[in-house]
């Protein structure tokens, strides 16, 4: 089929929509690597040169990539590795070991993982044999025997690098950096972390052996660039099977980005954070409303998605409470106001509630103590209140001091939307007296 015919092919709308979903979900949810990482060209080049020198010349190196969460550190590394693997010399030679500080919580586990990934001689299939001491000696001997010009270089990628610095004695880090500074098998140690003060975590010996090469991924995105990025993320690629649909879709995306209300929403998100992850979550929510009946993203979609993202979690939870529990919360709020944040216990809250009942309640009446207790416990389970510090099991339940985990504004916001809230309760919330 000629290209022109393929472009003119018309798929049924359902097929188009499912294709759109597939492509965009891969981008948002599956961390698909972009064709070219944007905004990090200098770092990309630096890292690529570094790894290439290790792979080709056998020069040992170590580098730390530092950036806030969602800045694209892992994406940068993966894109560099993808670019390098297209060179045969690198692909044939470079051995890779990927470690993650959250998975390998201990040096022992990390060593087993390294041994397994390098498929050293004490590995059968996936099982590593030997004790911690043996694994360490084995690995160190293996690396020591290596040589700059004849051994395959090894790339160690340490994700969540700051967690490795919390292992005992920092043995693994010391040894890896020591190998990178000795005339042994060439290694490249790449650490990824989000802590800016990561060097302070390293012991002085480890720090001395680290080459102090750091790459910072600090984005300097402006709002127009942010809009451009959204447009790129939402656009369909050129090789979409139905060309006409793709054109319509891309045009709709462009109008969306230029829409006033949408821009306001996006500005709000941009002010909050500029990283990829939160952006992807927002766009994912918009995408999930796309269906055959509504085949494009409208500004209202964006507005709803934004409201969903930025909604207050606790305020939403308050909507599910019973009236009694809500009254208890309001009583706690008043106690906080009067006593300026001092912890309270059930008896105090109950007294406050009784005061309200005496004064002006028409709809509520007094409940038994066990029912109040149960309501209180429910609030504790929902973590809307938590025991104040130093609460021991010695005091009786009714007298244990608690603190409220909600803010004034959250309670008021929840009350406004609470379904069928009695008016006297609402009035009570606004002022304790009167």
């Amino acid at each position, binding site marked *: 089929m000629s290209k022109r015919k393929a472009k003119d092919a018309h798929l049924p709308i359902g097929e188009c929509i499912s294709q759109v979903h597939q492509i965009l979900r891969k981008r948002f949810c599956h961390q698909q690597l972009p064709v070219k990482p944007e905004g990090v060209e200098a770092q990309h080049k630096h890292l690529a040169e570094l790894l290439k020198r290790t792979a080709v010349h056998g020069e040992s190196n170590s580098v730390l990539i530092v950036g806030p969460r969602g800045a694209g550190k892992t994406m940068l590394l993966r894109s560099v590795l993808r670019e390098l693997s297209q060179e045969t010399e690198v692909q044939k*030679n470079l051995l890779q070991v990927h470690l993650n500080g959250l998975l390998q919580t201990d040096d022992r586990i990390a060593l087993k993982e390294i041994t397994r990934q390098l498929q050293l001689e*004490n590995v*059968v299939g996936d099982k590593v044999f030997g004790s911690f001491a043996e694994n360490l000696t084995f690995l160190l001997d293996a690396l020591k025997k290596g040589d700059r010009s004849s051994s395959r270089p090894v790339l160690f990628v340490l994700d969540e690098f700051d967690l490795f610095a919390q292992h005992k004695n920092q043995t693994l880090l010391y040894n890896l950096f020591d190998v990178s500074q000795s*005339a042994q098998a060439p290694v490249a140690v790449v650490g990824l972390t*989000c802590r*800016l003060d990561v060097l302070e975590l390293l012991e002085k010996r480890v720090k001395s052996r680290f080459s102090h*090469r750091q790459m910072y991924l600090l984005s*300097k995105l402006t709002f127009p660039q942010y809009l451009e990025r959204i447009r790129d993320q939402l656009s369909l690629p050129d090789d979409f099977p139905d060309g006409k649909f793709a054109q319509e879709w891309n045009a709709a995306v462009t109008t969306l980005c230029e829409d006033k209300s949408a821009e306001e929403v996006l500005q709000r998100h941009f002010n909050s954070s500029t990283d990829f992850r939160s952006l992807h979550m927002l766009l994912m929510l918009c995408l999930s409303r796309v269906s055959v009946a509504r085949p494009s993203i409208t500004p209202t979609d964006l507005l709803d998605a934004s409201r969903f993202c930025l909604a207050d979690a*606790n305020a939403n939870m308050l909507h599910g409470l019973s009236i009694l529990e809500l009254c208890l919360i309001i009583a706690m709020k008043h106690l906080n106001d009067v006593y300026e944040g001092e912890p309270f216990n059930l008896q105090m809250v109950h007294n406050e509630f009784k005061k309200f009942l005496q004064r002006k309640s028409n709809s509520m009446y007094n409940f038994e103590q066990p029912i109040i207790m149960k309501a209180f416990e429910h609030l504790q389970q929902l973590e809307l209140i938590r025991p104040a510090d130093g609460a021991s099991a010695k005091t009786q339940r009714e007298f244990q001091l608690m603190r409220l985990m909600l803010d004034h504004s959250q309670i008021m916001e929840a009350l406004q939307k609470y379904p069928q809230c009695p008016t006297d309760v609402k009035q009570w919330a606004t002022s304790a007296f009167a």
Partner: protein
Amino acid sequence: MAASLSLPPRITHSLTPLRRTNRKPGRRDDVPLTPRSARRRESQSEMDSPPAGDDPSRTSSRRKEIQTGTEPVLEVLDEEEEENGALRVSRRKSALKVSSRIRKQLNLLDGRLSSDEDEEEEEFVPSRKELQSSDEEEDDDEGDEDEELAAKKSRRSSSSHTKQKTRTPRKTPRKAGPITPRRHRHATPSIPNRAQPARRPGNILEEARARLHVSAVPESLPCREQEFQDIYSFVESKVLDGTGGCMYVSGVPGTGKTATVQEVMRCLQHAAEQDEIPPFVFIQINGMKMTDPHQAYAQILQKLTGQKATADHAAALLEKRFSNPASRKETTVLLVDELDLLWTRKQNVMYNLFDWPTRRHARLVVLAIANTMDLPERILINRVASRLGLTRMSFQPYSFKQLQQIVTSRLNKLKAFEDDALQLVSRKVAALSGDARRCLDICRRATEICERSAAGLVGMSHVMQALDEMFSSPYVAAIRSASTQEQLFLRAVIAEFRRLGLEEATFQQVLVQHQALCRVEGLQPVGVSEGLAVCRRLGACRLLLLEPSRLGVLQRLWLNVSQDDVLFALKAD
């Protein structure tokens, strides 16, 4: 007895090879018996028991474990006479497959396996088993290894009587069998080789980079001649006299301690080859390269004699070795790197290390390296510190002239740097730490920058850029590139600190300020959840220090950057 065999108890204390005839029976090592070695021999004799078909599962289990042993049996081929038992051939298919795999691997590793040795392949299994058993003995501390082996055995061994032979009941002593000679377990761990050799440096800058790499240690270290001389004369005198002694070398990281000592030992070994001084043995251990201080014993033993043993056993053996006036004529020089990591609460390891040289017949010279000058006074108990003695040597951090000399001597007439660029680097590094590694790394980075900008020599601009990169503190840049809400939050934190007059505040208090600031800036006031997210992001980068986030709005926060820096960063745009 662990191995109460249901089979007729054929206690073979001697080597009764069932197949191999060229094995010398009764060859023993003079290793003293300990429960574990006894156990091992017991297991050996288990292997000697009845012929194939009896316990195929056990054999195969052993074989499988052995196959996973760390060492191939290459060097064991040389020591075949030490085999003390034949193994029957298992009839089970899986075991045959495994044994053929082992054979194949051995063939791969060592082409000189002749055909007549092929049939003896199966009999090398006991060696593997031995390896695995001494493997096992090493890590009695490793419970997981035991469980692992026990699990393997229980999985694989179906018959009941094999279960009795599982090694898990380590507590039950095995019958004292023949002493099995310890073989030299030469591991051949290795990283695979590359297809073609690495590319040589092409141009001058690449050559400079190769020479400036920290690993390219020169034959003779500049600026450490005096220290070299002192250590050399100390060790030489001890070797010539045939006595022992201790020396303590200290200095901040990167001052050339280990390199100097190794250079001394190289020269001495050269002199020993030339017969100028009596021969000696040089071994080195590193406190950071072991998982537990007691492993030091095992490592020293292995490097001295090639024996593998558990830490306790090794300690006993070394004690015996250094106490007895054996016919040993060679001095042993032991280099202990990162001494402070060998600290234990009772300081046994360090005590022994410094006590052995004081024995008359030990002839042990210990060179200990650490970072702190007053380590003996600070953390060593009196008796250990007194055994360490007063022979101390302190390596001072390099001055800028010395650093310059180091770099120049590395480059060795290679014209790659401008002089003032080099001087700038040396001065900067000398002012900060005097660490030679930093200096070399910065110079290397400067050559990379220069190469990228395609200039000729490495000049001041490149060096300053490298210094900037490697010495920079990213906080100001991070604040500048934070989002609007994050910057407002930082401002709110400072405002709240000012209001309270403290250096800490709760999130709730800061949120009030934050919402006020939002109104001032004309932005929509931020909700609690959004505020918490902003706060959490700042805490992840460590611009703020937070309490655990389960405290929600009640968590306290502190600034990790000084207030002036924050204001400076926020002002500059």
